[in-house]
């Protein structure tokens, strides 16, 4: 797979996240995201890596204010810098403004996207719905044309517009989700585990599409996953999260070859290399340290939760 030369990532920021914190106001309070600061540059792919419960999805949902109570954004800002030079602080928007800005400027591809499509509505209707809501002035023909165009852009045959979600394969449904997220040509796309449930071959194709579309349209991507090797294939920079904090942030190749934080090293070590050295850590002797990460805790009355 030939790669274009690595693009220098010194462009202007498109999303600035400053001191962002999200708390779940239950008894006792749970600090899901703790003082996270990140900058997303225009056109870059930022990988957000971490295990389940580290807060990466909460952060993503929090940025676009999709969190349901009892979650609350307890501090910080998520400021979007549009191409026209306008700065929008998401936390200060009211309902109407949110509806206008969401999907138009920042869109999302959700986790379990395969189940996010409405099973009783055709693909065309779901795509058109976006235009009906956000571009009411478009006439019917222009809308139809645009929907067909969108599908072809993500590599799905235009004829599939009439299909229902259950008639499409997993990979195709994912592409439709990406098409929906791209419909209004947003400047930022947040993708939460978009390829987790897909086959490795289909996954590779989807990643290729995302990279290609990014090159064509110039949007920035926040790619959330637990699969660190995957992020290396697609990201410019990678941020590693653990228990609500960003423990390391840096250029993808740097992070891979020269990790600084012990957790990053631990996470990297969890992915045995496919073609590299055949280490003895799996079939060698019993390594008790490996299981210490998942030891039984006796002190807590309700211990052992995987978060």
């Amino acid at each position: 797979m030939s790669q274009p030369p690595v693009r220098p990532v010194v462009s202007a920021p498109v999303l600035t996240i400053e001191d962002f914190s999200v708390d779940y106001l239950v008894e006792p309070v749970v600090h899901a995201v703790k003082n996270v600061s990140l900058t997303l540059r225009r056109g870059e792919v930022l990988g957000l890596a971490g295990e389940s419960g580290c807060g990466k999805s909460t952060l993503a949902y929090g940025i676009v204010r999709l969190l349901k109570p009892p979650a609350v954004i307890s501090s910080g800002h998520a400021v979007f810098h549009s191409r026209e030079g306008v700065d929008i602080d998401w936390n200060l928007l009211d309902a109407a403004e949110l509806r206008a800005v969401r999907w138009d400027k920042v869109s999302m591809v959700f986790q379990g996207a395969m189940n996010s499509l409405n099973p009783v509505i055709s693909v065309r209707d779901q795509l058109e719905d976006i235009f009906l809501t956000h571009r009411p002035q478009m006439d019917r023909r222009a809308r139809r044309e645009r929907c067909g165009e969108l599908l072809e852009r993500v590599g799905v045959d235009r004829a599939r517009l009439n299909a229902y979600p259950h008639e499409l394969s997993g990979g195709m449904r994912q592409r439709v989700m990406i098409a929906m997220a791209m419909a209004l040509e947003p400047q930022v796309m947040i993708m939460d585990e978009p390829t987790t449930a897909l086959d490795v071959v289909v996954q590779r194709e989807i990643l290729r599409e995302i990279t290609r579309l990014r090159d064509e349209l110039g949007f920035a991507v926040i790619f959330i996953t637990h699969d660190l090797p995957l992020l290396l294939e697609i990201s410019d920079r990678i941020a590693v999260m653990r228990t609500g904090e960003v423990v390391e942030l840096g250029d993808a190749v740097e992070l891979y070859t020269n990790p600084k934080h012990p957790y990053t090293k631990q996470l990297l070590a969890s992915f045995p290399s496919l073609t590299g050295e055949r280490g003895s850590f799996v079939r060698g002797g019993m390594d008790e340290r490996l299981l210490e990460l998942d030891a039984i805790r006796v002190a807590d009355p309700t211990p052992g939760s995987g978060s």
Partner: protein
Amino acid sequence: MALTTQAAEPAAPAGNQVKRARRRRLGLPPMTAKLAAGLAIGGVILIFGLVGPFFVQDPSRVDDIGLTGPSGAHLLGTTQTGQDVLAQLAYATRGSLTIGAIVGALTLLLSAFFGVVGAYAGGWVDEAFSLFTNIMLVIPGLPLVIVISSYVPDKSLWLVALVLSITGWAGSARVLRGYTLSLRNRDYVLAARVAGEKRWRTLAVEILPNLVPLLASQVVFAVIFAILGEAGLSYLGLGATGSFTWGTMLYYAQNGLALRLGAWWWFVPPGLLLALFGAALSLVNFSIDEIINPKLRNQTRAARRGWRMSRQQLDKAREATL
């Protein structure tokens, strides 16, 4: 293969949560205002029905004082034939509860057999049981009861209970069948098979305990259905007119023109107890539903009150998520 993300469980809980955890471990529903109210009201009526008849006068004793309002001698007045209403109420409560209990038990047996056993056995047994259940479901209950009434003019409580059971178990069986089918393919059931467990033991030990909340809910529902159904039947004169139940009291009250004569002491008490008991059982059922469907647990007002969010924060969050 999506990674299952566990919900954020708060760490080191305080006293309240430990108690709640213990209740949950026993499989009991969490004690809420709803459940407490349901159990209290239902409990009081139950005690009245069990113990009341020992303390009241003879409900069938006729007197020539005729229709009189509440007084010292008759706390809830008398009927048209001078019978003591309070005494009748006590016996009627017992009668209605008896019907509820009988129908509850019979429905449980029938629906569990045709629903659970059928679904677990699979194959032609499942097909046959399912067909039978569907036929029973389709047979109209009221006409069946009317037909039986015309053959047996003097019905006992037991016969009415039997008829209500026969017409009522099929709906429950369908629900149980659906749930058992989903449980049958769970990994832990397959694991039991792989370990070499006998099939009947797997049913008893692995599947049945997980069915208990659903079974409980179905039984409570059947009891409500029985009591209200019997009341309706009796009101139409198709019930056990020889015995005392809330329904028959209302029937006689209607026949004795109690409404027109303004003799509220005759029809209000049975009607009130009927409504209260039905409501109490429904409240208990809602609480059981919270075990079956954990999503409901977090959406109730009681759960929401546990959040430490200010009015302002709640509004802001709600506004953002529509």
